[in-house]
């Protein structure tokens, strides 16, 4: 029978040895004795506290718990592995934002919002990164694929759910430097993680 400290050591070891987040269920599976999920959660919280002063932190993500380096240490780590992942172009980032905030969306939806065609390369970039995938097809001619963000997207950006995406700003007010009347009624805010209302007239898909 392991005492709580030994359980913590096992948890720490498993989390340090696994790059992908581990769920409570996966962590429980390690132990012969049946350790309650609550107990594990408490020990994980303790573990997180234990690591507070270190260059590595324990975070709770969409699919579980993971150790990752703190961004403030990146400047040191980069000197060991100089190759950096490419920064994404605005086209990629905007496409990603549309999928993240308006999912599920088709390529046509994205093109309507951005006002330009979306190259297949953009979608491929995001798919290959494992951040988006096809979750269905819209039942209209051409049966366009509907894209949504994945759990990996959340994990890789340190989010537990779409609710944690940065809130969309009230744009009209930002743009309107002359303090215009509230646009609340006219342009209701769509919320992150909530599928946007797609007016019928924006529907037609590009094949």
């Amino acid at each position: 029978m392991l005492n709580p400290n030994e359980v913590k050591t096992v948890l720490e070891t498993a989390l340090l040895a696994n790059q992908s987040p581990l769920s409570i269920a996966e962590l429980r599976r390690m132990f012969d004795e049946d350790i309650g999920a609550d107990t594990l959660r408490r020990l994980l919280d303790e573990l997180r506290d234990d690591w507070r002063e270190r260059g590595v932190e324990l975070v709770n993500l969409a699919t579980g718990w993971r150790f990752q380096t703190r961004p403030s240490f990146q400047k040191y780590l980069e000197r060991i592995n100089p190759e950096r992942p490419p920064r994404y172009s605005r086209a990629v980032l905007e496409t990603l934002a549309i999928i993240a905030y308006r999912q599920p969306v088709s390529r046509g939806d994205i093109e309507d919002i951005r006002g330009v065609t979306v190259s297949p390369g953009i979608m491929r970039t995001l798919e290959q990164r494992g951040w988006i995938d096809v979750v269905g097809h819209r039942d209209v001619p051409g049966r366009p694929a509907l894209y949504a963000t994945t759990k990996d997207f959340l994990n890789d950006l340190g989010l537990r759910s779409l609710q944690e995406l940065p809130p969309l700003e009230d744009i009209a007010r930002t743009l309107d430097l002359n303090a215009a009347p509230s646009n609340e009624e006219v342009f209701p805010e769509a919320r992150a993680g909530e599928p946007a209302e797609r007016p019928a007239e924006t529907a037609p898909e590009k094949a």
Partner: protein
Amino acid sequence: MSQALQQHGVQATIPTPVATAKIHGQLLTELPSDLYIPPDALEVFFETFEGPLDLLLYLIRKANVDILDIPMARLTEQYLEYVEVMRRKNLELAAEYLVMAAMLMEIKSRMLLPRPRALEQGEEDPRAELVRRLIEYEKVKQAARKLDELPQVGRDYFCVEVWIEQTLTERVPNVCAADLESAWRSLLTRARVTQHHRITREELSVREHMSAILRRLSGAGFVEFTTLFDPGRGVAVLIVSFLAVLEMARESLIEFTQAMPYAPIYVKLAYAQSE
């Protein structure tokens, strides 16, 4: 045209001479003098736009006008100027820019219709759809910026994954009795070896004893026949052992020797490798 821009209080700066900027390798010299051009190279400048909506938002911001009450005539005019420059400079002009130009002109003309009547009929402001799209796109732009600011794995931090030290125990497949049974069944169905290989529980115990006696005899030379049997294990085992010995004799696996009647019988392997 610069007059028109100035009348509306638009930032209509006369372009600072950008003689050093190059477009397609040529010095940039013949800019329309009435167009506001930021002091960047024109090509680079246009490339920063993600499309017509992006360009429109830029113009609106520059003009510092209310997005909910866009002065359509001025915006359309400016937009067309930019598109014209792009076209003249042979910059790659996406079709969307021309579509947007047409849309702006259409909205502008609808704005010229007598307003009161239109409003009476409950008609929407001709600009409404454009404004909706502009706002939506601006939101996306900001959301994209914020997403990019989030710490990103690989770029801003790494995942920790220490080496898992594997002990040297080799993982071996597990097999259960049922696997053997099913392997045998599949043999049977394939080869139809039914007659020859029917195996009963009783026969199995005989064959088990055959193996055991072979093991016992290997390297032992001559073994006295009686020592192959252990009466202490009961009559059943005794009989099975005897059947095993008989079967081995039949299969020529063992040989018997007896010097004279009633002398001890010796058993040895028909073939021992050590020989």
